[in-house]
């Protein structure tokens, strides 16, 4: 039994082909914005699913233009669903660009087959995605530092306090941080409380890569 996920904009036609083509469709979960046209499209999709006897859940995103928030929510829902239904599919055609990109990101990270529906022909097109653990390209120590910074995003850490927190020599920490900065995973910025100090932060979205 398959569970279909989808992103929905103003046009139900972007999602309907996948609802029709998914064999043994158990359930549909789709994301839409709070725009009136998107809510209209949601009602049409729900009606269509009712006519087919397919349970459907429409999830209204609080901000359809926040890539990280959308990706975080979608990923949480996908992981929860996967616990009971391993066969997941994702139609990423509808919604804002950032909604589609968020869905694409989750499909990449979770290894979910994704499709796109052509705007004019409504043909379903499978996307060439391969699940890769992007966080695996970091060394174990780099990953540990990044995970620590992600978990403590609200706390300002200098290189010294970070080294102390993780029990490593400052020079060793400097080595790990250089690797992380080169990869764009960590950023240095001025401490708002003390402009002389540089503090370290995980770059936006790193939760998704190391989660």
């Amino acid at each position, binding site marked *: 039994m398959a569970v279909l996920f989808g992103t929905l904009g103003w046009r139900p036609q972007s999602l309907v082909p996948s609802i029709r083509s998914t064999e043994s469709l158990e359930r549909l979960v789709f994301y839409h914005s709070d725009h009136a046209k998107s809510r209209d499209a949601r009602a049409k999709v729900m009606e269509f699913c009712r006519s087919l006897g397919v349970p459907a859940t429409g999830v209204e995103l609080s901000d359809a*233009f926040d*890539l*990280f928030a959308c990706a975080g929510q979608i990923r949480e829902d996908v992981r929860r669903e996967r616990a009971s239904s391993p066969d997941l599919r994702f139609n*990423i055609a509808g919604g804002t*660009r*950032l909604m*589609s*990109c968020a869905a*694409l*990101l989750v499909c*990449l990270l979770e290894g979910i087959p994704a499709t*796109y529906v*052509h*705007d*004019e022909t409504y043909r379903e*097109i499978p*996307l*060439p*995605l*391969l*699940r*890769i*653990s*992007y*966080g*695996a*390209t*970091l060394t174990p120590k780099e990953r540990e530092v990044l995970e620590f910074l992600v978990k403590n995003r609200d706390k300002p850490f200098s290189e010294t306090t970070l080294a102390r927190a993780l029990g490593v020599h400052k020079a060793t920490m400097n080595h790990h941080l250089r690797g992380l900065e*080169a*990869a*764009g*995973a960590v950023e240095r910025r001025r401490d708002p409380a003390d402009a002389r100090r540089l503090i370290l932060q995980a*770059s*936006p*979205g*790193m939760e*998704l*890569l190391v989660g």
Partner: protein
Amino acid sequence: MPARTLIATVGFDERHVLPALRLLPYDRLVAVGGRDAFRAPAFRRLLSIEPDLQRFPVDPFDLQECMEAIERCVHVAQREGPVRISATGGTKILTMAAFLAAFQEGVEAWYCDGPPLRLPVLRGARLADAFPAAEAAIIVHLRKAMSLESLLAALTELGFARRTVMAAILSLGRKGLVQSSKRTGRDVVRPSPELASIRSHFAGRPGKA
């Protein structure tokens, strides 16, 4: 002196490209967009600002074509220096293709419609690097169905042990990239469509040292 390249997806409104040009320093600008977009007034305005920009026309509704074009631009530009992608302009398909290419090539990517957003791509983390040497060699070599023995012979000639190649074939099978079957009593290995779509990431990668 390395030349910094900015690859930007473009459509019918140059205002989706300009924020990236202001934010991201570059020495060379490459525009990827639909053929109609390159004939539009917006593109002429962009050319008046950047007369030396290179253009790559694509079908902006064909994700595979868009992605391959952007990846080709990345491979060429990386020979000269660092590369960044702006995924803001053009169709949604073009944006997603740029996003996917950025992830698979480990290239910094931005979305600049509204507050600039750096996409969570690890610089330098390429799709190809996630595969061990034997798997990469199979991906390059296996272009159509071939007998297991032929594949083993080809890869052992490159310096891989038989056991390593067998393990690599199993691993690629679990990833959905190769399919094994028996045909007239012989074991046959064939590439899946997904393998064909990622092969370009492995072109030029050396075999076992």
